[in-house]
């Protein structure tokens, strides 16, 4: 099997599963229980939090364990909006955010908030000047993703952070789900106030994640209850989940330090091979994230290609899995202003550090065969 759909989800590292299993079976007590056994679970959770903070170079109290990207984005956006609506009810985001950001914003619109959706250029990039211009006295939040999940475009988070930093009443949220472990982001240096991360995109498990919330920021919780996670996210802590998330994070950062060039080289090989076929348009920017290559083959229905490749045990995807349930056009590519013939024929190949040169070569040959074969059938 050749798995090239790592932006949808990744295969959990065996070490992560082992940690999860051990933590879940040996430290299953409720960290809030006052007995010794509960105390051990609490210690383990606090060690996990401590390590997460060290890996991200932030403080322990700034880490909230969540169930993943969708929850993190919802908690950040609705949490800020509801808590700080007295300051203002205007939010800025971009047109190509993940649905969990866009839909959360829409929900807030229905509650009377105003949202400005910043347009992007042909490569899906946000211009910081546009954000600067959109800021109003009643703006309370800017939410911009770091790496776009369909195109791999890297947004100028540092620059946006500098802009947001000029306005003390304005919070800056970054959806870092696709970038974590692949494209470095230093939260403090980039002046990020809130940052969403997810476990299953970095070889961790589904249902795990972290929301970074800068010290001193209060959120309106989505989940009320026992007051866990500093009152920001109630519910018995998923200790084993948190442990697995942090373990995955440590491992992916090691990979990022040592194997960064590997991803770049995979992406380079793939691009070179795709360039040989002039029917193919590469939509991803040259300077994008090294693990995502988006392309269009006009005239070919993407689903058909996916299924044809799937028969040969090769897995890629159309657009981001979360948007795949809607119409067949890529909203991200439309927002980039691409012609419908490209937006309706987009495919995404996404790597992990586990992929090999050999796999890329095999993919390339198979892809060529599939196009050839389908052309005969479809043509």
């Amino acid at each position, binding site marked *: 099997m050749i798995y090239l759909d790592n932006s949808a989800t990744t295969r959990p590292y065996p070490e992560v599963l082992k940690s999860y299993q051990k933590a879940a079976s040996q430290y299953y007590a409720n960290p809030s229980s006052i007995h010794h056994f509960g105390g051990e679970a609490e210690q383990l959770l606090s*060690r996990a939090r401590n390590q997460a903070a060290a890996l991200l170079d932030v403080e322990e109290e700034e880490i909230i364990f969540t169930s993943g990207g969708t929850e993190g984005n919802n908690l950040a956006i609705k949490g800020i909006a509801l808590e700080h609506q007295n300051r203002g009810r205007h939010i800025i985001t971009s047109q190509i955010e993940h649905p969990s950001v866009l839909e959360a914003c829409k929900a807030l619109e229905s509650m009377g908030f105003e949202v400005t959706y910043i347009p992007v250029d042909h490569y899906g990039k946000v211009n910081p000047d546009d954000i600067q211009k959109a800021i109003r006295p009643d703006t309370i939040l800017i939410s911009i993703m770091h790496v776009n999940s369909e195109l791999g475009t890297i947004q100028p988070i540092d620059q946006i952070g500098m*802009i947001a930093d000029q306005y003390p009443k304005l919070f800056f949220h970054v959806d870092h789900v696709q970038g974590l472990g692949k494209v470095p982001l230093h939260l403090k240096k980039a002046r990020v106030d809130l940052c969403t991360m997810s476990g299953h995109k970095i070889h961790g498990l589904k249902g795990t994640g972290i929301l970074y919330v800068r010290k001193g920021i209060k959120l309106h919780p989505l989940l009320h209850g026992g007051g866990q996670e500093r009152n920001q996210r109630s519910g018995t802590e998923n200790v084993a989940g948190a*442990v697995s998330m942090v373990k995955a994070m440590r491992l992916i950062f090691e990979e990022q330090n040592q194997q960064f060039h590997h991803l770049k080289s995979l992406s380079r090989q793939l691009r070179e091979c795709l360039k040989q076929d002039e029917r193919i348009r590469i939509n991803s920017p040259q300077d994008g994230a090294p693990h995502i290559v988006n392309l269009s083959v006009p005239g070919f229905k993407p689903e058909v290609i996916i299924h044809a490749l799937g028969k040969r045990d090769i897995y890629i995807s159309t657009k981001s899995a979360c948007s795949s349930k809607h119409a067949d056009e890529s909203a991200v590519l439309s927002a980039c202003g691409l012609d419908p013939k490209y937006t309706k024929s987009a495919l995404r190949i996404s790597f992990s550090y586990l992929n090999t040169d050999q796999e890329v070569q095999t993919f390339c040959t198979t892809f060529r065969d599939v196009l050839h074969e389908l052309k005969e059938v479809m043509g």
Partner: protein
Amino acid sequence: MYNFSRRVTRIKRGNGVDNMQYDHIVIRYGEMSLKGKNRKHFIAQLKENLQKKLFEFPDAQLYKTRDRMYIQLNGENHEKVMERCQEVFGIQSLSLAIKVPNDLDEIKKGSLYALTENKEARTFKITTKRPNKQFPHGSQEMNQILGGYLLSNSEGYQVDVHEPDVEIRVEIRHDAAYITSRKVPGAGGLPVGTTGKTLLLLSGGIDSPVAGYLAMKRGVSLEAIHFFSPPYTSERAKQKVLDLAQVLTRYGHDIKLHIVPFTRLQQKIYQYIPEGYAMTVMRRMMLRIGEELAKKRSILSLTTGESLGQVASQTMESMNVINEVTNYPIIRPLVAMDKLEIIDISKKIGTYDISIRPYEDCCTVFVPKQPKTRPRREKIHQFEDQVDFSKELQEAVDGIETLTFKEEQTATENKFDDLL
């Protein structure tokens, strides 16, 4: 109200400062310079303490000149090293420095880096000193040259000679020019280890860790004693104390923690001593055990977190009858502080969040309904004479368990290491 034209990049391109980086930290010691003959000893201790502090930064090198110390960063993160050094007592102030050759262009580049690296700054001032009179430009002239250069090569800065956000100091010495900015205060006080050792009575509360911190500020090294009463107090209450001791190692490096099994003695006190006086007797027992341990370990004083009038045991009358059992000096750094001041310090030194974890310690479990705020000395003597505590006291002292904490290790780390 909103300035839309604020620059995002504040440095004009092509000045060659991209590869500039702070490479030194200058460390100045204040009060110590006053201490005549002890001076040498104090500086040696400070150097040792700093050396230990740098364990996280293997590439950083510490060296000492006549009146200062320098840390050569060799690529270590300057912000983190600064932060860590601010925890070391005996330092008056620290600055970040760039060392450049005695060359006008290099000095210009270095000062531009020192200015633009500080993102908060809006105004600046340049102060040049020129001990090296061979250098062709005088210090006044240098101020003007550099000021002009900075203004024309950066954006959004202004000169303010009275209250600048950043003062860039250029020292043209014989070996090289040192450009410093970002002067921050050190922790003050005296190097830990220069004024002897004290035994801190450490509960899990807010006060005692702060008392330990302040004692260390005056150069004292610390051992701590904790009274543990299972099952009345839980493992987690003990864990709090272990965690507090671990935090305190940031300021005092090695800390020994002595844990006294206190249950039997405490039970006997509450069995035989009238309720209103039990707490006073318990405190007296703690001091007796403390003194006994101090004798064994050649420690010359005890330290407590008492603050006058804060609770029943800390009234003048209570202190008087409690203090009666020992001749050892009791250091009470908090005695004249308000609770809020104490809380502020505990937040600053990182013990507050641990101290407020909601577990009982031996002082809170047995709180009587109405403790005597004015215990009478004759009564105490009368009650204590009626009961023989010597066996329990001896058992408590004999049963002491000692743990050693060092800054570079975390007590609970190992058990979970393979999971994370």
